[in-house]
């Protein structure tokens, strides 16, 4: 992988190959993460495209001194996902239905359990376990202190474990 700063500089200079490189490297991971966050294949694909398109149109906001390009990208994707949820408020009724569809697609017990966690807990676990994001990157993406990442990860794991054992339920989506 090319150095973050160099890749970003090329994107800022309107080098489409640089964005393609970024998309190839992180596009699938971001889309998988967003699919968990949005409970919808189509929405995840749309938001992924929008996230990259937005970076391409307005390449500003990334500061290599504050984190990696990957954490910046996932942070931007997470914000767009939150925005998507806000726009979907009137359709919350249909949310449960979509969740059921998603469950059917994954056909996974852990997937079902994960869907019952709060949005932040889902994001934390997914980014940590699947994407392998470090505590520092998680702190940058979720805009929380590093120390809080550890305690919230523990809380998320415990919540998931209890659901898995049929002991409890998460607080619901935030």
């Amino acid at each position, binding site marked *: 992988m090319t150095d973050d700063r160099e890749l970003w500089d090329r994107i800022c200079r309107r080098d489409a190959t640089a964005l393609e490189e970024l998309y190839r490297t992180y596009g699938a*991971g971001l889309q998988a993460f967003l699919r968990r966050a949005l409970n919808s294949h189509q929405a995840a694909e749309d938001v992924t495209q929008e996230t990259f398109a937005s970076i*391409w149109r307005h390449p500003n906001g990334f500061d290599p001194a504050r984190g990696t390009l990957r954490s910046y990208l996932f942070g931007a994707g997470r914000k767009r996902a939150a925005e998507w949820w806000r726009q979907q408020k009137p359709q919350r009724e249909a949310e449960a239905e979509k969740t059921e569809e998603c469950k059917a697609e994954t056909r*996974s017990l852990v997937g079902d359990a994960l869907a019952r966690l709060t949005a932040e807990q889902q994001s934390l676990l997914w980014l940590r376990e699947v994407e392998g994001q470090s505590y520092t990157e998680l702190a940058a993406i979720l805009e929380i202190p590093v120390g809080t990442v550890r305690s919230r990860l523990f809380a998320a794991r415990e919540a998931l474990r209890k659901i898995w054992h049929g002991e409890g339920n998460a607080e619901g989506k935030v």
Partner: protein
Amino acid sequence: MNCEQVGEYISALCDGERIPRDAAEHIGECETCREQLNEYAAIGSELRRLASLDEAVSVAQVDWKLEPVSETGWWQKGLTTMRIPKLAFGVMLIAIIALSSGLVMVRARAGAATARFLELEYKLPPTGTPHICVMRADGSQKDNLCNFASHGREGLFLMNTRVIANSGNRAQLGIRAKYIPGAGEAEVNYTEALFKDIPEKVLSIEPGDKQEIQVAGLGAVEVEGKYLDHIPPLVYLPQETLDPNPKEFRIVAPVLVRDNEVIVNGGVGSSIDSGSPDATLMLYAPGEGRYLVSVIPFDGAVEGKVHLGQITFSLEGHEYLLLTSMPITISEHVWVKHEASFKPSEHMTRQSDARDDQVMFLVRSLRKLEQEKIEH
């Protein structure tokens, strides 16, 4: 450590983080905690397996070269929203209020700064004795007048000045001046009627200018002006400070109150002694006689207390309060005597002061005021 305390460290261990030694020891010895660690690891594995299924669906191919690139204009940036912490917003709001009230204060001060006062100095021949007048010169018709009379040995000089108009630093003055030879001791009633028959001369003056006006029988009176940004405590003595100097005894606009009843209102005049060791106020009112208030003890006088512009004393079974508009003296005590039978007509040599039907006050030395015939 117990299981509950190490829970967070089990999670951290799962992430490959370093944990405290005692937490690690507990996890190694505790079957429950090891099981929890294994379950966390299993959850992680399951999540990654789930993700692997997801990634089987590849992301859409996009030709980024075809994506439009838009340059955001400043006006567009101005229309976008931004997040701001509540605390920062509150501080910003307070700053705006503070700054706006500061602007109001600055404006108010700027408005106040437009009030200007013109100090005129007249030098009378033949000695060049200076007389000073201060009047408002900012277009206001209030306090834009100055009258004075100078009792010379050989005659009486009367002066009435008003600011007609002003433009920038130039002031247009209307001056009525008259010299009455041989009337040095004449009674002067300071009213407008006194100047009614004197023709007004118009004089234009700027700071630094020295102008002259010719006064019949006296000669050329030199006039010089300068602007002040404040009105001095005493308009005839602009150099006078609010605090009295150590040798001063000053009475300005005195009002005498007896048992909460005003018995003398001396008007807006002033009388100042700048060096007599026995400086004394003589305050006369029709029907009351005179009160002598001295900085030194003398026969028949009672002690009074001084506090800035107030003197309090007890006399003849009454409580008195003498009020003045400026601090009187640095002394803390004065001595007061009441002479109910005193009549100016029997003691004052100057005709203008020898009237029994009007309030009169002046500050002179005690020695002079105790003489049978008072010359001043």
